[in-house]
């Protein structure tokens, strides 16, 4: 074993990460090479210093400072369901409609009539469509399309759940 091979294995040698054969070659070379012996001594000084190094203590108010800052931040809690907001929106809309019709700004019966007429027309159109669909087996094609869509959504949801956190961590790193 030459000096270059020996010096590049010294740390592994000291950590016991070398094969027995390699370790023997290193110790044999060390016995006869003062240069590598000197490097080995220096590596052991590094090892000793690393193991002995005195750790510092965090500032005494470390936790308190963080908890104070956190109090002013939005909670990372999982978002609540949006139903309450949706319900409030629907309620407010109907309240406005009721108010406007009470003031005769809106003519409710005319609106209901118009919606009814539109529904009738739509129904007729749908029946024509479904008859056409039956003729061309459009229904089958549509069913298959819907099934494919469901499968794709399921795959996306599974993959998303698995990789989103990782993506999140990556973004964390990218952010400054």
């Amino acid at each position, binding site marked *: 074993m030459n*000096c*270059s091979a020996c*010096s*590049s294995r*010294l*740390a*592994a040698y000291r*950590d016991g*990460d070398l094969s027995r054969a390699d370790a023997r070659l290193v110790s044999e070379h060390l016995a006869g090479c*003062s*240069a*590598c012996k*000197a*490097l080995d*001594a*220096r*590596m052991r*000084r*590094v*090892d*000793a*210093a*690393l*193991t*002995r*190094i*005195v*750790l*510092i*203590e*965090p*500032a005494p108010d*470390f*936790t308190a*400072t*963080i*908890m104070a*800052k*956190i*109090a002013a*931040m939005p*909670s*990372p*809690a*999982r978002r609540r369901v949006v139903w309450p907001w949706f319900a409030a929106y629907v309620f407010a809309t109907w309240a406005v409609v009721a108010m406007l019709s009470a003031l005769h700004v809106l003519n409710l019966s005319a609106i209901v009539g118009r919606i009814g007429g539109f529904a009738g027309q739509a129904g007729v159109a749908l029946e024509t469509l479904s008859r056409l669909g039956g003729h061309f087996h459009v229904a089958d094609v549509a069913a298959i399309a819907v099934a494919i869509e469901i499968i794709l959504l399921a795959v996306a949801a599974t993959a998303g759940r698995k990789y*989103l*956190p*990782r993506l*999140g*961590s990556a*973004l*964390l*790193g990218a*952010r*400054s």
Partner: protein
Amino acid sequence: MPGDETLVALVLKGDTQAFAPLVERHQRGVVNFIHASVRSAEDANDLSQETFMRAYAHLRTFNPDLGKFSTWLYQIARNVARTHLGKEGRRPPTEDLYEDETIEQRIPDTRRDAAPDATLIAGEDEALVRSALTQIPEKMRAALALRYFNHLEYQEIADTMQVTLGNVKTLIHRGKAALARELSVEHPTGLLGASAPQEIRGRELLSL
């Protein structure tokens, strides 16, 4: 005391106070991990605060299925430290050269290690190693800090740094070799005096 992951779940349910024991538990580790990269203890404290704030703000992205909370936290700490060093532009320009080969292959200089007095040098070595740590490549420093300051297992270091187990060992070995080299440069024991480092580098280059 509930485990880290349980506490995270509590915070995510809206119990903000459950974050306090997480900070208590990991502050010392994070501060010291970052202190390996920055010389000033004050900076280490500030950057650790930033680490915990980031962790809190992005707590929902922590997935316990992918690993331990501490692993995730040290990843953030590492990113915070790297961003800080990037801003300061203090990254050693020789980083890429270190990253792969050659350091350990340089032939050591025997003259500077002539009979070092162990007890006299011990305390001095710690200070030298501390300052040398900030000079070596970030990857090696992170691996060494996680090992010697945070006492993580090799596998945990691999998970945190997202490298293989073999890579971790290599980083630690090369890191120590790099430290030994910094030690020799900054610790002239007589004979050669202050102008030694340049001379030696030149000599080493010739011998490569």
